[in-house]
């Protein structure tokens, strides 16, 4: 078989069965069979999707953010649709780390798919304590640290907007975690590369981005905010251009793997994020619209690579042609 040249870059087709493509990627010490994950908070505890998705086909599932103590979440309304997107203010409702380990993990660990646990806290100590508890659970494939939360000890400034605080959280979690540590970056910053560099230097094994953009919606008839929480997080196709730009930017800044998130709803979307330099992607809001999306993205990437004779996803990652 001839090597295929695309815009001057040679893509070496894989030997042997040309209908097989190598989709494996590494996130720190974790090897995934393919680069497609689900995004935290949009895939429940995975079981909700068993009727729609063959979970074993996914690269990994990332579960809803877990805090030290259970949280009831925000009063409703918690979600509102916007143009090509949605705002959510779930308020990080979750069962807390203890019940997560006792009630949820046993179910999760038998699904045959790597489970990544998203965590959140109000202080460095809280993040660390959650990570310490999770380190006891062997079947956890990785920790994803959601740093978009406000630091209650530092006057409520979000960990995700201050490089020093983000580095401190990363270091604290990394220090106690057995599994690779992914730090999930907030897009609500002036320079996301700065944040990425800070957490990379603090020892993060990977970064994922983007979390939601902060937004708001107003109900004209009642003259009130449409979310009880007033503001919420914007996600969905509307934010894809912002996510893609930030992934491109960060992938050029840090050498650790970048996981692209934001508005991915199809294999084409995922392929674009990989081109921009992401080593893996997460499907978020699209799961809520079409619960089969994540598996369709895996299948679509395979089909595309077969059709275009791309032997390995590693040849594709970062292959964007910028003249």
């Amino acid at each position, binding site marked *: 078989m001839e090597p295929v040249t695309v815009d001057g870059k040679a893509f070496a087709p894989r030997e042997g069965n040309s209908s097989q493509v190598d989709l494996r990627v590494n996130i720190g010490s974790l090897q995934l069979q393919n680069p497609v994950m689900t995004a935290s908070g949009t895939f429940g505890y995975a079981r909700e999707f068993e009727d729609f998705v063959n979970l074993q086909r996914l690269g990994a599932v990332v579960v809803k953010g877990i805090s030290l103590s259970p949280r009831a979440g925000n009063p409703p309304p918690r979600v509102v649709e916007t143009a090509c997107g949605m705002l959510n203010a779930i308020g990080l409702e979750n069962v807390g780390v203890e019940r997560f380990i006792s009630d949820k993990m046993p179910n999760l660990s038998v699904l045959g798919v790597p489970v990544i646990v998203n965590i959140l806290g109000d202080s460095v100590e809280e993040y660390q304590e959650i990570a310490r508890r999770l380190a006891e659970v062997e079947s956890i494939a990785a920790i994803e640290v959601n740093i978009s939360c406000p630091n209650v000890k530092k006057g409520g400034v979000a960990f995700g907007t201050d490089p020093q605080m983000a580095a401190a959280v990363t270091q604290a979690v990394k220090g106690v975690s057995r599994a690779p540590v992914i730090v999930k970056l907030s897009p609500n910053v002036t320079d996301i590369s700065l944040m990425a560099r800070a957490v990379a230097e603090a020892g993060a094994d990977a970064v994922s981005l983007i979390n939601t953009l902060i937004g708001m919606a107003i109900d004209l008839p009642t003259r009130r905010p449409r979310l009880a929480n007033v503001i919420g997080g914007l996600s969905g196709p509307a934010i894809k251009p912002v996510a893609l730009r930030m992934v491109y930017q960060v992938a050029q800044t840090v050498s650790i793997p970048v996981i692209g998130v934001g508005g991915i709803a199809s294999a084409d979307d995922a392929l674009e994020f990989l081109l921009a330099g992401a080593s893996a992607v997460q499907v978020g809001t699209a799961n809520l619209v079409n619960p*089969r999306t994540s598996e369709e993205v895996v299948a679509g990437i395979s089909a595309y690579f077969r059709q275009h004779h791309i032997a390995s996803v590693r040849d594709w990652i970062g292959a964007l042609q910028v003249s």
Partner: protein
Amino acid sequence: MSQFQQNVELIRTESMTRDVVRLTFHAPDIAATAHPGQFIMVQTTTTGNDPLLRRPFSIHQVNNNGALQILFKVLGRGTELLAKRQEGEFVSLLGPLGKGFTLDNGDASCLIGGGMGIAPMLFLAHSLRRQGKTPTVILGARTGDELVPLLADFQQLGVVVQAVTNDGSFGSHGFVTDIFKDIHFPAHSINPIVYTCGPRPMMAAIFLQCQHKNLSCQVSMETTMACGIGACLGCAIPLKSGGYAHVCADGPVFSAKDLLWNL
């Protein structure tokens, strides 16, 4: 408890009133497993991502031939788009979703539907009749136009419908609560039960009456929803015991006494 995501054929569209539409789909898998009170999430767009989210609708009726109906009012962009879909087109449905009405425990029941809350009552009445029960049915609407086109379907089931309209243009003049006030179950009834769906204030008033009458009351609740399958936690509803339930997974039907009503 299987759930399906399927592109199904729209086999019949009916304009019930100026802004109430009934759609019939050929959706045998969903129809076969559906329970009254459950709902489906319907994709409203055919191209593009705006509106992005599916829309929830109670299952109005199903039959053995795989037909599944929804009945809805055109309110905004999603329902507008759905109302424009033509027979023969395919529509993506997700369902059956949620927990429906509990049917088994009582021998006497009263079904109270107000406005579009009538939608799930047809399926419920149908199922109760199949169990050999004869529910009392109270249907309320703003005006007669919204009620009349629905009566025949209930009557076909062999149930007696008490109609009430806010403007008095059909049936009694007033509200469903005015009718329910005077409903008295036979003294020997075992676990008599009230099923209701409609605007929140209506359901709250019915629940209050049920408490006085010592009747158990099941309510079908609405919230804004993103996913309908328990994935996003967007559809929270406050519980009397504190915290929240999720309408799409824990409901949409709840025992009214478990909810926080702020009465």
